[in-house]
């Protein structure tokens, strides 16, 4: 039985088709699994192993290296407060403490209603807008304690519509129509010189667009 829904299975196949080696799709597929259920289950990892020609142990081995993958249920909303240096200088730690107080859990914990998980995270590349945080990887910048409380209120009342549930990253997917693809070149297809490099062999056709007569 398939873990992935039929739609997601089709997406998984398409993702794999864009790499010369199926194993390269391992991290994107773990994200897809997390998108489907909010966290990565054993059943998901077994199917990812089948799809990528690896073993479930390899999938877990790779996946567990990366902090974004959760192997147990987490809150619907992951609140990641940055406390790295630029944010620390402008109140990142105080913001984290406020978040912990407002939500009643410590960093790493999940609220009893399963809505929120708080994390104390490293630099999220918004250092000039400190202190800052992400909720399910959507930014909130120069956040005050009041802003934080409003944000939580908005989420609880479904008013933060730019924030999808945990697991969903980019909401636009890459899609390459089959006939537009150049064609994936596997590593073992050795020593096939790309055709356009032949242009180096002759003197340049000064300024003329070569494609014109094709």
């Amino acid at each position: 039985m398939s873990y992935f829904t039929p739609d997601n299975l089709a997406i998984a196949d398409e993702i794999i088709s864009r790499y010369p080696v199926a194993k390269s799709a391992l991290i994107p597929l773990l994200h897809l699994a997390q998108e489907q259920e909010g966290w990565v289950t054993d059943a998901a990892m077994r199917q990812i192993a089948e799809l990528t020609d690896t073993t479930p142990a390899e999938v877990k081995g790779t996946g567990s290296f990366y902090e974004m993958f959760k192997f147990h249920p987490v809150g619907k909303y992951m609140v990641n407060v940055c406390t790295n240096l630029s944010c620390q200088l402008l109140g990142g730690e105080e913001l984290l403490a406020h978040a912990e107080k407002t939500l009643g859990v410590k960093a790493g914990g999940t609220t009893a209603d399963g809505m929120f998980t708080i994390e104390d995270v490293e630099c999220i590349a918004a250092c000039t807008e400190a202190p800052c945080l992400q909720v399910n990887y959507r930014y909130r910048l120069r956040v005050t304690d009041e802003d934080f409380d409003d944000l939580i209120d908005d989420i609880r009342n479904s008013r933060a519509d730019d924030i999808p549930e945990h697991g969903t990253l980019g909401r636009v997917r890459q899609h390459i129509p089959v006939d537009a693809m150049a064609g994936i070149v596997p590593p073992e297809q050795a020593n096939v010189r790309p055709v356009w490099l032949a242009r180096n062999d002759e003197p340049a056709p000064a300024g003329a667009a070569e494609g014109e007569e094709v």
Partner: protein
Amino acid sequence: MSHSVPHAPGYVDNGGPKIVTSRFEHGDSFTLDRYEATDGYQGLRRALDRTPAEVHDEVREATVLGRGGAGFPAGVKWGFMPPGKFPYYLVVNGDESEPGTYKDRLLMERDPHQLIEGCLITCYALGLAQCFLYVRGEMALAQERIAQALNDAYAEGYVGKNILGTDFSVDITLTWGAGAYIVGEETALIESLEGNRGMPRLKPPYFPAAIGLYGQPTIVNNVETLSNLPWLMMNGAEAYKQFGSEASPGTRMVAVSGHVKRPGVYEIEQGVTTFRDLFYGDDFCQGIREDNGLKMFVPGGGSAPWFFPEQLDVPLEGRVVSGEGSMLGSGAIIVMDETTDAVKAALRLVRFYARESCGKCTPCREGTTWEERVLQRILDGEGRPSDIDMLLDIADNISPGPYPVAADPNQGLAAVPFPPKQTTICPLGPSSVAPITSTIRRFRHEYEAKITKRDSIPVSAALMSSAPGNSEAG
């Protein structure tokens, strides 16, 4: 003259030359329509009118320095590809996560087509078979914008089979990470792209051009580096070299964060703008908050040895900054005013390296956590007098020899050795040393003040005096 741009949070237009941020003023800068209306894909057309070798020559001639951290010229690195060992691959490093660094995310979110065009120019010049655009996992909007841009570019024939009707064909695959700083190191990036834990590979070979993705020759370049290429192809190396200094032509993006009045991301001319201009200039940060005194600053990302007020007149140029004992790195400048606790600030960066160590080699895995624990206990008032020397000793075990720090007047002008002295596989471990040596050499008294407050001195003094041969004798 200078103004912030609301749809590009943090970006400030300082009125200077713009090579990579020229479209940021437009709210729809990320769309294909806007891109095509503002010279979009014209650089690619110019490139396709020339031979691949000529395009490579233009990049070499312009001296486009890498913007990912090491500042290595792209044209030279491209020359390391062993001839005839096809297929070759391109991996784009969009993993931006060095503390204080904020520029690649803006370029990916605000001008994805510019990056895509840069990738295409690179693939054309070197005969690359496929491009993998690796975006940091946490950057959902950047992933979304690049996916949309790629879909549009494929539909218009800019990417894929027979690009713009020519014999040039290449696919660009968007791929994304899942939260691990070390994956920014290029060999770890390749491991991650192969579906593995993101652990750096042993060196040599020093460049993935020799052995890269799937064992094939691979170019790894930073997002900002590649974003320069469309402009370069349009305007030529001569025009590029009109900006910046002779050794470091062009512009670069820097993020100034911390205790300044107007923190921001600025595109500056390399080798022209100084740190003083940047911190105090009206078009830049407009001074230190509350007009406080400047205590210290990180000139180029969490891994860079720190600078002090004496270095304010140093221009932002790789060579000069390394002559002063630090590096420009990833363009991340973190400013700290006189109210900052040096030990606390150092601890925060060290804690980052301890958390992010991949664990592959012992000096880094054990050393960084040890450093963190010692700094934490000093900060908590539990430090021992021997802790300061112990920190320096641990540091020396990770990165042996005199460490070039501006804080030490006796060796301020020593150049950063390359490759850096390290007992580790990659520079992450040694990076943890910079905040420690910088602060201890400069602010040893702050460490001592935290330690002498404790009565642990008599305790350890007692321990010393009970050492063998010291006590019982009498």
